[in-house]
């Protein structure tokens, strides 16, 4: 990276308000060609608004954006692309019914004369894919493509418009470590081609592994830009939250009680095989492994949303009927699902309605839901979980990711479960809320709750779990106690030790 060159893109004192909320309040960002630049900040720090401004979705109220020395035209996604800024969103928005070739060129299909030239489009797309060293059939439709592959298609799309600035918004959130490695090598290749790559992530280790410089935002303003080589992780966190986060993963010792859940020889064709474990009162059992190793499938089967072929799930000595989530709930199990927007919440419903939805039967008198009691339940939990909101009647879609997750937790804790399953409990949540969630889980465990925690974040599993079950390709490849578990051990089990050394 050569700082003598002028920046390819610079944002100066950007301000933007939505209604009464000041989303950007002095945002600065300078990007140089040939660098990978991390953009950090808690949820609500203004990263998304800044990204969306560069993507052409929003227009700043004040401040300037300069691209290659010229004023950047804001407010049109198409014009943002034409000017050379491409955004790869966390959840890529491909067109499932169109071929990969057409996805790359969608909205500006290659033509000969007035007509779309399919052959040329396929040829050019294939060339771009092979340049990045990715082997994908450009004539297949995008339906069924993994998230990682979808991101690659988006990156190819960015290359096809000769983007100088490529922004990746939390690209690794849903990738396995192998896919992350591939993405990193693609990002480095883009840097070598003199692109400016912006990398947004909540995972600091990734930022330190990949990026050259970082810009940290807080409360809508830029609080600092540093070379990654000069930065210290704890200080970065301090910059992000504006306070010291002393313990990120504060699981405290709890007295383990009786075995409450026993999983015996659980098998599901093509998903997982021979799963055996027990969970005790007050214990947090971590399920570690790569994305796609069958962790979510197991907990879904335990809770009865999916069925299984063989084996049994035993709660307090009584086998649970399979594929019956209503009975699982009655037996005291709760499941906080992986995708809170899709499976965890009714987005347009109020906080109160979402919190009390697991309790509806208890809140009904004479066929009518008692709104007062609903409100009371929601109020209690909002206080316990330190939920940030303006009114309990607000739709949950208006809350930040971290607060949404708290509502999902509240919904299940309200049922006073014996066993709580949490699947990626802190995905896409800022550092501050993350440690609150950890503290809460730890406290619930102390009070005797048995917790099964699925997590892709190694520090989270290592910090929180009393025991760790490691999965690889649908099999249980090891169980580690808290004392035995090290990052190296878990990773080598999850990836296959031979692969590591």
């Amino acid at each position, binding site marked *: 990276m050569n700082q003598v060159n002028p920046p390819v893109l610079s944002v100066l004192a950007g301000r933007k308000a939505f209604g009464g909320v000041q989303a950007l309040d002095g945002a600065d960002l300078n990007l140089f060609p040939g660098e990978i630049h991390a953009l950090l900040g808690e949820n609500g720090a203004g990263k998304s608004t800044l990204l969306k401004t560069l993507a052409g979705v929003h227009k700043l109220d004040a401040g300037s954006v300069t691209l290659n020395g010229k004023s950047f035209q804001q407010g049109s*996604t198409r014009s943002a692309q034409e000017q050379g800024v491409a955004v790869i969103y966390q959840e890529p928005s491909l*067109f499932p*019914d*169109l071929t990969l070739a057409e996805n790359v060129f969608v909205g500006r299909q290659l033509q000969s004369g007035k007509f779309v030239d399919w052959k040329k489009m396929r040829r050019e797309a294939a060339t771009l894919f092979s340049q990045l060293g990715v082997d994908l059939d450009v004539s297949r439709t995008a339906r069924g493509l993994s998230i990682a*592959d979808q991101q690659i298609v988006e990156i190819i799309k960015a290359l096809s418009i000769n983007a100088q600035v490529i922004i990746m918004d939390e690209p690794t959130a849903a990738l396995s470590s192998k896919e992350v490695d591939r993405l990193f090598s693609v990002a480095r290749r883009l840097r070598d081609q003199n692109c400016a790559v912006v990398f947004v992530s909540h995972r600091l280790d990734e930022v330190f592994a990949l990026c050259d410089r970082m810009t940290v935002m807080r409360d809508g303003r830029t609080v600092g830009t540093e070379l990654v080589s000069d930065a210290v992780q704890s200080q970065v966190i301090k910059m992000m939250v504006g306070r010291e986060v002393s313990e990120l993963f504060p699981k405290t010792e709890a007295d383990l009680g009786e075995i409450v859940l026993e999983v015996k020889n659980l098998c599901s064709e093509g998903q997982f095989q021979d799963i055996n474990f027990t969970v005790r009162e007050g214990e947090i059992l971590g399920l570690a492994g790569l994305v796609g190793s069958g962790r979510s499938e197991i907990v879904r089967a335990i809770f009865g949303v999916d069925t299984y072929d063989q084996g049994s799930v035993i709660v307090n000595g009584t086998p649970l009927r399979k594929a019956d989530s209503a009975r699982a709930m009655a037996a005291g199990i709760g499941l906080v699902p992986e995708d809170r927007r899709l499976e965890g919440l009714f987005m347009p419903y109020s906080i109160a309605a979402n919190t009390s939805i697991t309790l509806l039967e208890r809140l009904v008198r004479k066929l009518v839901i008692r709104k007062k009691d609903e409100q009371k339940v929601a109020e209690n939990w909002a206080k316990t979980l330190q939920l940030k909101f303006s009114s309990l009647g607000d739709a949950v879609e208006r809350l930040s990711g971290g607060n949404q997750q708290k509502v999902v937790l509240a919904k299940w804790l309200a049922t006073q479960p014996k066993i709580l399953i949490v699947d990626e409990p802190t995905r896409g949540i800022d550092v501050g809320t993350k440690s609150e969630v950890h503290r809460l889980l730890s406290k619930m465990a102390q009070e005797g709750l048995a917790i099964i925690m699925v997590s892709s974040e190694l520090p989270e599993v290592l910090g929180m779990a009393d025991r760790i079950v490691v999965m690889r390709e649908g099999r249980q490849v090891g169980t580690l106690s808290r004392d035995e578990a090290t990052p190296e051990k878990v990773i080598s089990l999850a990836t296959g030790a031979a692969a590591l050394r």
Partner: protein
Amino acid sequence: MSILRRATRFRELPVLLGLVVVYLGTGFLNPIFFSVSILNDIFFGVAIVATLAIAQTFVIVMRHIDLSVGSVVGLTSFLIGDLSSRGFSLLAVLFAALLVGATVGAVNGFLVGYLGLPSLVVTLATLYIVRGIFNEVGKGQTIVESMVPKELNWLGLNRLFGISYLFVIVVVLMLIAGVLMQRTRAARDLYAIGSNPSAAGLVGIPVKLRVLAAFTATGAISGLAGAVMLARFNSSSTQSGLGLELLVVAACVVGGVSIAGGTGSVFGAVTGAVLLQTILMAIGALGIPQFWQLAVNGSLIIAAIGLDRYLSTRLRSTNIMGASS
């Protein structure tokens, strides 16, 4: 494998196979079915629904629907007869029909595209509104043969190389619309909108404008289809075109134009219409009580949607990256 994969990509294959099976099967049971006159009846009879199905494809690929077409086609068939009996030239009355259809389509398109109202409800409303206007305009009147422009009359009675001119119109329209849908950017945008509505705007597609344009085109063609209807029946009354919209949607769905948007072709829609018409004729030829026709149509729709779901879940389970890693 590659042949199989290519076959599953060819979405019109199931409906074509269905058509062949029904045609050959019925002919096998009752050889009269293979006669030229039956074939003519199929082509002649399907023309209206096929024309409307071509028009309907534009909106269905956008994950929308236009239920107002039955009322539109009825109204314009009446207007064409009525206006030409008052001495207007054929060209002028056709233009009027096009204009009426395009206007209704533009209203639908504006309400759906710009105001974001659901197309199902909007076009249900315009279905009633247009029918209501029709009832007022055509109060008690009936267009009879003498009022039908003689050119349309001629088109309905004559054949080109043994094929009804009405079906020739369908084929020409299908070819033009087919090329446009496959090979122009604006039409490809419709597929993108239907495949992922929220992403379409993000890649710079002018979604509102496209929705407006597509509904307008659907309305315009449906308006012109009034001429086909008049040529076919040589009459029109306020009952004309009643309930036709559902048959049109059925033809599209059976022909592989997915109601979930993003896929399907005008060729498929026409083939779907021909299949439904062939089944109608087959039921007659086999002496099966007529009411079974509706039940068969219904079953076909479910079969088409089931097949659709099956194919897309099959595709979902293939992961190319997984295979290479």
